C-alpha cells in the first residue's frame, strides 16, 4: 500500500497525548495500523511525552505509597480499574464468531464492522451515497460512519467544525485538495470546505469521523442530514 496523504502533526500529537475523542481516535489508529510513516512520527511524539515526564518537577507521594503498592505486587493479577471489561471492545453482534481478518478493514476497525464490506447494512443517504453509522462508541463523541460513494457521485459540499478525518478503505476519491487512494487519510482543518467525488468506476468506501456533525452548505443536503441523523 502506497500512502500519499498522512496525519498532521497536530492530530498525531493530540492522539499521542490521549486528547482525542473516541471516533477520531479510532480513525487515527486505523491509519497508523497501515502507515509505517505515521507510526514512526507517533513514536517520536511519544518520546517527547516521555522526556517531558522525565523532566517534570516531582510531587511528593504519600509516605506509605511504595509500601502499599509493594504489598499488591506479590498478589495474583487483580483486575485493575483500567483493564477493559471483556465486553467493552465491541457491541458488534458477531464478535464471538471467528473473524477472518479482511485486509481491506484496518485492524482497529474490525470489531465494529462486518468482516466483509459486502455485508455492511448500508442505508441510503442521497443519490449515489450510502452510509453505515458505526455503533459501540461513546454517542456524545462526534460521528463515525462508513460511506459508500458510487462512481461519479459526490458528497455534498460541506464544512465541519473541528477535525474531520476520512480514510479510504476501497477505491478512491478526489476533492479540492487532491486524490485519495486506499490507506490515504484526509486530515482536514475546520476552515476547509470541500466536495469529495468518487473518481474511478469502482465505488469508494471510506471511514469518516468528525468531532461535530457535518455542516452541509446546501438546503437539500441539510434535509438529508436531518433525516439520516448523520
Amino acid at each position: 500500500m502506497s500512502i500519499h496523504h498522512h496525519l498532521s502533526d497536530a492530530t498525531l500529537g493530540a492522539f499521542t497525548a490521549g486528547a482525542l475523542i473516541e471516533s477520531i481516535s479510532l480513525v487515527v489508529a486505523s491509519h497508523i495500523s497501515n502507515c509505517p510513516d505515521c507510526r514512526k512520527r507517533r513514536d517520536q511524539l511519544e518520546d517527547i511525552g516521555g522526556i517531558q515526564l522525565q523532566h517534570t518537577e516531582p510531587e511528593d507521594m504519600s509516605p506509605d505509597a511504595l509500601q502499599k503498592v509493594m504489598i499488591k505486587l506479590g498478589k495474583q493479577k487483580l483486575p485493575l480499574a483500567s483493564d477493559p471489561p471483556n465486553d467493552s471492545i465491541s457491541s458488534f453482534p458477531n464478535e464471538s464468531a471467528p473473524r477472518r481478518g479482511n485486509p481491506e478493514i484496518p485492524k482497529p476497525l474490525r470489531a465494529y464492522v462486518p468482516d466483509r464490506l459486502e455485508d455492511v447494512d448500508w442505508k441510503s443517504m442521497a443519490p449515489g451515497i450510502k452510509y453505515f453509522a458505526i455503533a459501540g462508541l461513546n454517542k456524545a463523541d462526534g460521528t463515525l460512519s462508513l460511506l459508500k460513494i458510487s462512481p461519479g457521485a459526490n458528497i455534498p459540499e460541506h464544512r465541519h467544525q473541528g477535525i474531520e478525518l476520512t480514510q479510504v478503505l476501497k477505491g478512491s476519491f478526489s476533492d479540492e485538495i487532491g486524490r485519495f487512494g486506499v490507506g490515504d487519510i484526509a486530515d482536514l482543518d475546520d476552515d476547509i470546505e470541500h466536495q469529495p467525488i468518487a473518481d474511478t468506476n469502482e465505488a469508494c468506501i471510506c471511514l469518516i469521523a468528525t468531532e461535530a456533525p457535518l455542516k452541509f452548505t446546501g438546503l437539500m443536503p441539510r434535509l438529508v442530514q436531518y433525516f439520516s441523523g448523520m
Partner: protein
Amino acid sequence: MNKQAQISLGSGDKEQPNFSLLLLSIGQTQDKAAFADLFQHFAPRVKSYMLKLGSADEMAEELAQQTLLQVWRKAQLFDPDKAAASTWIFRIARNIRIDVLRKKKHFFDDDFDLAEIKDEQENAEVKINREQKIRHVALALAELPQNQAKVIRMSFYDGLSHGEIAKQLELPLGTVKSRIRLAFGRLRESVYLESGEMA
C-alpha cells in the same frame, strides 16, 4: 541502587539509573528492589503529570500508584529496542489516566497486535539505542526557544488542542500552529537526521 544500573549521561550530566535495565530486571526476575528504585523516581513524576492535567491530589496519587502497578505487571512486555523506559512509562500513565478518569476508549497500539506489519525502514542498520536517541531529543528540546518549547509541551504532553493553547496563551491560532511546526521541524532535524532515521 544496583551499581550496574548506573550509566553516565555524558559530561556535565549527573548520574542517573538506567531505567531500561531496571525494567528488564523487573520483567525477567520480578526484581522488587529494581521496582522500588523505579517507583521512587517515576511515581512522583507521574503524580505531577496527573496533577498538571487537572486531577485532585488524592486522585493523582491513586493514578500514580496504579501506573506503577501496571508497570510491574507489564514489565515482561518491555522491549528496550522499541521504546525508551520513559516513553514506555509515559504511555502507561497516559492510558491509565484515560481509562480510569475519562472512561473512554482509545485505540493505542498496545491494544492491537501490529507485529504482522513490518516497517520497511526498520532494519538492522537503523536499530539504534532508544535511550541514546532519547537523549538527543531531550537535548534538542532543551535548546528550543522558550516560546516553542512551551507550545510543544502543551500540545504533546498536556494534550491541549491548538485552539485551547491559543486561548490560554492569548495568541492567534496561526501563531500557535507555526510555533509547533517550527519546533517540530527542528526536533526532527537535530535528532532524527543525526541518528540516520527519516526526517
